[in-house]
């Protein structure tokens, strides 16, 4: 149909729809005249008036906000996933949900991390199974053990991990006003655990305070070891270069090579550990970042020279007892 004819069809149909039913037939006949094609086109559209009444009246999103958010939605308490019975949702991030669950076979509590996005390509599944096997071999008292992983029926990956009942490293230190010497002792254990993994050529890739929990016994546990790599090779959604999974992760603790998208090495973990320690001791991030816009953070990480921690922690320990102040002093001079 040419543009003129298309316009004519629309005009007649629109005009007809505004007329009372009894006048319509007459109008269509008059408007179409001898043009049989035009008349057929107009009538086939008008015939659908009743049928199309509610058609697409509801916005696409109104019926399914889950669409836009991604396919992930909460597992319900009491629901079964393979051998696990879901107890409750214990954490939620941009990319995943974490559940406390019962391992019904082994009669123990586990944490299940369910990704909100499906990465269900054959290469991903192969990669996933390979890595899962390597990570399950990582057995260390300060690393939350990965028991296994699988895909849900909808193709969403999930990981079954040792359940750690603990407090984030930074919250733990702040709430208890932990003296520096204690903080450093904790940190040494964390560093040793990372070193253990590095000896096995496994890189964490996402070291940050949220991934380091301190148990009731005061033992640090590193979570999500190697999980980032499992998710890295594929994009979250085909055809959208800006939406890589890595970009969606907290970039504040990332190394420059990581924000530049270059190859990561064990040194990248050491760098992130350094940022964690910096923040722990000074109460500040090494970079002056105005907001959480990922591009801005990436710029700061790759371009800014961090302020020396000793300049950042001035006043940080003022509220503390004289005892911890002297520890600060000896740490500074040491």
């Amino acid at each position, binding site marked *: 149909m040419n543009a003129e004819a298309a316009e004519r069809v629309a005009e007649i149909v629109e005009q007809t729809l505004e007329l009372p039913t009894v006048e319509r037939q007459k109008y269509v006949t008059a408007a179409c005249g001898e043009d049989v094609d035009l008349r057929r086109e107009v009538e086939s*559209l008008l015939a659908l008036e009743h049928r199309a009444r509610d058609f697409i009246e509801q916005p696409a999103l109104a019926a399914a906000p889950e669409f836009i958010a991604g396919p992930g939605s909460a597992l319900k308490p009491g629901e079964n996933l393979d051998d696990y019975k879901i107890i409750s949702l214990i954490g939620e991030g941009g990319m995943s949900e974490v559940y406390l669950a019962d391992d019904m076979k082994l009669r123990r509590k586990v944490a299940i991390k369910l990704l909100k996005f499906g990465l269900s390509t054959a290469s991903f599944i192969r990669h996933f199974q390979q890595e899962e096997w390597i990570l399950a071999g990582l057995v260390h008292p300060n690393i939350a053990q990965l028991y296994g992983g699988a895909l849900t029926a909808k193709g969403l990956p999930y990981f079954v991990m040792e359940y750690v009942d603990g407090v984030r490293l930074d919250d733990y230190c702040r709430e208890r006003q932990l003296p520096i010497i204690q903080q450093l002792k904790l940190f040494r254990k964390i560093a040793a655990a990372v070193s253990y993994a590095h000896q096995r050529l496994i890189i964490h890739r996402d070291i940050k305070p949220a991934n380091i929990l301190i148990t009731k016994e005061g033992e640090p546990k590193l979570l999500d070891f190697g999980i980032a790599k499992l998710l890295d090779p594929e994009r979250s959604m085909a055809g959208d270069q800006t939406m890589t999974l890595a970009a969606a992760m907290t970039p504040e603790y990332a190394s420059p090579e990581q924000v530049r998208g270059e190859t990561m090495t064990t040194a990248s973990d050491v760098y992130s550990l350094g940022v964690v320690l910096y923040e722990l001791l000074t109460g500040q991030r090494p970079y002056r970042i105005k907001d959480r816009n990922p591009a801005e953070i990436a710029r700061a990480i790759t371009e800014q020279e961090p302020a020396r921690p000793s300049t950042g922690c001035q006043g940080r320990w003022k509220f503390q007892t004289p005892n911890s102040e002297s520890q600060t002093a000896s740490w500074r001079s040491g």
Partner: protein
Amino acid sequence: MGTRASDDVTQLLKEWSAGDSNAAAKLMPLVYEELRRLARSYVARERADHTLQATALVHETYLRLADQTQLNWKDRVHFYGIAARVMRRILVEHARAHRSTKRGGLAQKISLEEARELPAETDVDLLKLDSALESFAKDYPRKSEVVELKFFGGLDAREIAEVLQVSEKTVLRDWNFAKLWLCRALTQDAA
């Protein structure tokens, strides 16, 4: 020196209003990311009033991304246009992924998951609608934009009239015609 996200969006919207079509391409990913982020928080909150969501989502995305004080209504309506297009893309991409998941034989260890309800779907096949809308746009570019803004963007007739700079009456006429045309296209497709 870095800029804030809202500065970027504000600037891009101005450039777009001034006729720089590259600006639209740069805006898409920013809007995309924010829409998704907001949608996730909506889903997490499990709002009961679903009808409000699409419109509210677009408005909230706009409020978060753009610096209101620097923009006029023309920039805002441009933003609505972008948001609607982004929503269309997300929804259609998701529908496509959803369909291929259903078809594709995954290496599934798990079968107990089946009881889990799939997200509620609209009665409309989004993929078919999307391709019908593309054909429709060839003959009726403005009318197809009305559909994009209303159905995918969740905007009302008044807002659409502002975006397209036509009267509300024209928007309604366009809409009614588009519904018939698209409904026919999908019906024929099914037959």
